[in-house]
């Protein structure tokens, strides 16, 4: 692993040393343990998520990457308790070591949702209620969780709009969503999410619907706010560029399972799962030779109702072999880095771990 850890990395290294006493920055806020989620449909029960483990620590940015249908959004919605007609079929979602969100009562959950954990969504154009002013929607969160009075909430709403870089917040507080651009609406979404100073912010593809110049603005805003407020960020994205730019640690999803996780440099510089490796090759970059075919990954992600019993990447994997008919264990490469691939067991057969690393 490269030396290049910037200041924040030091905190992780401290924790990795494995002293029982963890300092505030290393404290595990969200601990998703062996989470499975299923959806009831007309055609039966479909398992969208199988045995997912991941953690988010205080003040860190965890990127959750994967393609559509990989389960990355389902994980987020599971944490938020917004699965709709889906349900947690097994596993736990431990919040700050004391509440299992998977089994929490609606009332207890509501006190955490929007207050301790907030979420921003992919499509800012449809994620705000079109019939109420942005000030009204901002105040709603403040009045719900911080019991502010109307005037107080309005003043706070103006402050929040200013904080997320909305020009002239004093008048924009009375604007309706349709009077704003996509980038501004996403800023409003961020303001609403941060209204109650949450400890964890989940951002589900926050810039996917935005133009690239606006994406850069929003990412820069998210990064600044995350640092200033020391809020943990769970960033769901399909864009490895966004990962490289934002993340401390990365969790790579494939077909409802975690394929690999590690620090951002582990994943980008030293990927150990054949899927991560292939994914990184398939990204068009400025240096990709134009006269050669793109190194694509053959085949398609298996559909939910026809998931193979073993490794789910097996039928697309260039390194597939006999053992892949069985589900691979999570193999620890280092204290932070683990991969669910049989090939990794060859290197350190002694270090096979069940479940997540550490």
């Amino acid at each position, binding site marked *: 692993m490269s030396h290049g850890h910037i200041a924040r990395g030091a905190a992780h290294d401290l924790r990795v040393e494995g002293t029982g006493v963890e300092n505030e920055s290393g404290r595990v806020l969200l601990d998703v343990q062996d989470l499975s989620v299923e959806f009831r449909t007309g055609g039966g029960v479909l398992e969208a998520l199988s045995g997912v483990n991941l953690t988010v620590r205080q003040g860190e940015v965890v990127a959750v990457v994967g393609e559509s249908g990989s389960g990355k959004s389902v994980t987020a919605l599971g944490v938020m308790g917004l699965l709709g007609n889906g349900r947690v079929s097994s596993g736990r979602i431990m919040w700050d070591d004391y509440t299992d969100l998977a089994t929490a009562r609606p009332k207890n959950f509501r006190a955490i*949702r929007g207050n301790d954990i907030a979420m921003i969504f992919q499509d800012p154009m449809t994620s705000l209620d079109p019939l109420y002013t942005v000030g009204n929607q901002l105040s709603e969160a403040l009045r719900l969780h911080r019991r502010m009075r109307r005037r107080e909430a309005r003043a706070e709403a103006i402050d929040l709009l200013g904080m997320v870089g909305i020009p002239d917040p004093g008048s924009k507080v009375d604007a*309706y969503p349709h009077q704003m651009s996509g980038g501004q609406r996403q800023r409003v979404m961020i303001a609403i999410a941060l209204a109650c100073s949450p400890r964890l912010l989940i951002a589900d593809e926050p810039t996917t619907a935005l133009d690239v110049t606006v994406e850069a603005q929003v990412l820069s805003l998210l990064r600044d706010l995350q640092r200033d407020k020391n809020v943990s960020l769970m960033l769901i994205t399909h864009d490895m560029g966004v990962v490289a730019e934002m993340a401390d640690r990365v969790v790579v999803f494939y077909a409802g399972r975690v394929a690999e996780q590690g620090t951002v440099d582990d994943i980008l510089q030293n990927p150990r799962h054949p899927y991560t490796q292939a994914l990184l090759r398939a990204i068009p970059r400025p240096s990709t030779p134009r006269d050669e075919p793109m190194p694509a990954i053959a085949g398609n992600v298996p559909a939910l109702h026809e998931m193979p019993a073993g490794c789910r990447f097996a039928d697309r994997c260039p390194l597939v072999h006999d053992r892949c008919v069985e589900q691979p264990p999570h193999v620890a490469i280092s204290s932070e880095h683990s991969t669910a691939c049989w090939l990794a067991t060859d290197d350190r057969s002694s270090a096979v771990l069940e479940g997540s690393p550490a």
Partner: protein
Amino acid sequence: MIGYAIRRTLYGLLVLFLITTFVFVVLRLIPGDVVRLQLADAPGVTQAQVDALAAELGLDQPVFTQFWSFISGAVTGDLGTSFETRLPVTEMIVERLPATLELGLLAIMFSVVLGVPLGIISAIRHNSFLDQSLRLVSVAGISVPNFWLALLLITYLSIWFGWSQPLVYAAPWENLGTNLAIMAIPALALGTSAMAAVSRMLRSSMLEVTQSNFVRTVRSRGAPERLVILKHAGRNSILPVFTLLGLQFGNILGGTVILESIFSIPGMGSLIFTSVQMRDYPVVLGCVIFYGAVFIFVNLLVDLVYAVIDPRIRYS
């Protein structure tokens, strides 16, 4: 918005003119002759008597001249004189208006007061047994003809509960109890199909809204379900209901013709009914124009309410 209202009113007047022309022509095409009807078509009636009555009613003039004199009167608010009573039509309408207005408003109120909560319940508990039954009732409510439902209600209320309506109509300011006792059943019958339509429309629009991204956002900030449904989903899904009510208002106006006749309510509906039978063209025409104007006005109102509820709609 004022410019929009003025423009819409101008369009409305144009539509009203077309309605007038159409009804005027249709009335002349109905078989039966008002003169012979009034003279009882007795064998002893002479041609001279027929001609004199026709001249008195203005029916000896060419149709175009009759139309023109009607229109020029209508512009000044004079809708002509009844063939039957020889009273000004405007005066007759003013006299009959309150009963019809009351009936129509009661029917709309009934459809909203019952239809809205049923729609919400159906949406919240969608696909439950309760929802399935409510939907069945809705389909029945839409399909049942209102006069038949009214007759059914009269019959079974008297058979099962021994309750029958007062026989003599009373205006609400004379005797509110009697008035409501008479109005209740026709209003119920008249409002049932609108009520069913409202609950169906609200159910589907609310189901759509509760699946939308912004409702998910509201839930994600920990809002209790009451706030989600009433504040956000409610206001967003009520818009199509207003459009529906505007259109249903037409059905209700149409329904007054037969229901007022059945229940002997002295409103415009029963006036139209008897006037058609008597070939009293000016009264029928006047009432139809009035109904048309009310319908156009109500739908203009609906569109203006839209702009109040939805800030995205700005009329210019």
